[in-house]
């Protein structure tokens, strides 16, 4: 599998990726930026596979628009997005995931944690075309609102033009569960540790296997938690 690591602040405006027939690519875009407007287009050809990670923190003003086009049969895309917002960060995501051919598979996992006055907006369109029989798509959008003035808007959209598919989405936003915190405290953890553990598990399922990146994110999470 080809691996690509890209720091967010090194990408200027547009980015594109072509996953060629039969190829497998593991792409991780990560990091911080003061202000960035990105437009991306990612195309998957027949029998190709993409593991895509967009891991963001300390982004004051961010506007990302990305299209994922599953053009060929038997393509598989796993898209994981993590957005950590704090202070007065404003994040805007416009994601389009289009299944155009048969037996295509996608998972879009979006996790947000927002502190202070962070404000996040997302529109995620999942479209399955008429010719994409046998496709399987799932979109999950979860947000933890920690800051008293944090806000989130989610628009998870399904457009399904074929009946021989599996397609669903779920979106949840709110505080960390009081019951889960209570349980962990009853097992001897203090509140801070309990919350930290819950946040770790909240993002754990979408992080890449790369230890360096995971450590970076955990450090960032700890520094936010101390505020």
């Amino acid at each position, binding site marked *: 599998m080809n691996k690509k690591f890209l720091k967010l602040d090194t990408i200027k405006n547009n980015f594109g990726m072509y996953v060629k027939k039969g190829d497998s690519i593991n792409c991780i875009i990560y990091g911080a930026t003061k202000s960035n407007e990105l437009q991306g287009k990612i195309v998957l050809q027949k029998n190709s596979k993409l593991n895509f990670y967009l891991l963001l923190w300390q982004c004051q003003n961010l506007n990302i628009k990305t299209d994922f086009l599953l053009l060929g049969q038997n393509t598989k895309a796993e898209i994981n997005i993590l957005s950590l917002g704090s202070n007065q960060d404003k994040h805007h995501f416009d994601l389009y995931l289009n299944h155009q051919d048969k037996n295509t598979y996608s998972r879009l996992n979006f996790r947000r944690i*927002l502190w202070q006055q962070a404000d996040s907006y997302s529109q995620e369109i999942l479209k399955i075309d*008429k010719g994409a*029989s046998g496709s399987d798509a799932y979109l999950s959008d979860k*947000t933890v*609102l*920690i*800051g*008293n*003035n*944090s*806000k*989130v*808007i*989610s*628009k*998870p*959209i*399904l*457009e*399904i*033009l*074929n*009946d*021989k*598919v*599996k*397609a*669903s*989405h*779920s*979106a*949840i*936003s*709110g*505080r960390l569960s009081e019951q889960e915190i209570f349980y962990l405290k009853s097992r001897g953890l203090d509140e801070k540790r309990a919350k930290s553990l819950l946040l770790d598990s909240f993002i754990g399922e979408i992080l890449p296997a790369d230890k360096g990146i995971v450590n970076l994110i955990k450090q960032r999470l700890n520094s936010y938690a101390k505020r």
Partner: protein
Amino acid sequence: MSRQEFNKTKYAHNFYDDFKPVYSVPRGLSAKVVDTISSIKTEPTWLKKIRQQALKIFQQKKMPSWGGDLSGLNFDNIQYYIKPTERQASNWQQVPLVIKKAFTKLGVPQAEANFLAGLGAQYESEVVYSNLKEEWQRQGVLFCDLSSAIKLYPELVKKYLGSLVPIADNKFSALNSAVWSGGIFVYVPQNVKVTIPLQAYFRLNAKNMGQFERTLIIAEKGSQVSYVEGCTAPKYAVDSLHAAVVEIFAKPYSRIRYTTIQNWSNNVYNLVTKRALAEEGAVVEWIDGNFGSKLTMKYPAIILKGKGAKGDMLSLAVASKGQHQDAGAKMIHLAHDTSSRIISKSVSVLGGRVSFRGLVKVAKGAKNTKTKSQCDALLLDDKSRADTYPTLQADEPTAQVEHEASVFKIQQDQLFYLQSRGLSEEEATSMIVNGFIEPIARELPMEYALELNRLIKLEMTGSIG
């Protein structure tokens, strides 16, 4: 139901009455038409002014660029007012025979006798019959057509009319405010519990007709009411328009159940604005069934304004050949400890399209709000389409907002099992669909639930084999 019976199922409401109204305005919309409607109704000056103001707003506002295709809607070809009878009846004997026959075919008088506290029946632009059983009259419940209510209880109506759906809310609410006629007024005094439903039935008969009823429901503190409405029209080759406005006020600790089953023929544009306001501790339950029509654009909203208010929306949409149901629900949480639930089920068949368009908004300060929405779409063939367009906006971090949506098809193993038990493919499909919509059907009054099952079978006719 046998295969033969199944295939014979027809749109039972597709009958046309050869009926001459006592008055009708010419086609097209103008200040003169609006004035004529107001004059016929001998309305007060304040209402005349509102109508003229609304007409100007309607003319200024652009057609919505989202939702469904409205390009075929020609406002100049619509007849905006048809007065069916000279006066309204409170006894079926006084209703002209042709109209009475039409409502009898629809089963309306029978339902009134057997199940209802009161009934209003609208034919074309006016309510031709309304009656409330004496038991409820004695307790101070008001149930009549809205035009009569303006004359009988002007201050009460003036206080509420247009306060929840303002004229300028959207193009079609402006149109309704300009040319409305008919519709029902319900007022339930404090602590009165109307334990059996009130019903209104709206029938469109003429070609190229517009029906613009306006319904106002007010439940005072601690009261309770269940209001049911049904709508039908015959099939024509030319289009008709239904643009209603419904405003519902649930005062503190009241409980309102609003049930509507709209079964339009597939030449009707159904573009309605419906909204409820729930004050402290009030409960609004909304059951919304959408069948037929060429295009429905309907997004009923519950505004949870008071602490602890609760909103519940059960929505069902079925789209068959040539139909687009762009329906949904809105829940606006403005106060703390409010809760809401949206359950939306849709069935698309024979190339029909159903779009769920929803909004859940939690305002800053609406602490400890809980809201959940669930949309399930069933696609019965490869020509049909299902979409969901939800917007979830949490401006309050203590709010718990949940949403999920899925698109299904009927699985071969489900069909195989039922067929192995002796059912035909049609019967098996029909049974699975009825199971799919059961969470909504079980909340309906018995006769409506039966009607719902019949309608589902009807919409699916020709979908198999």
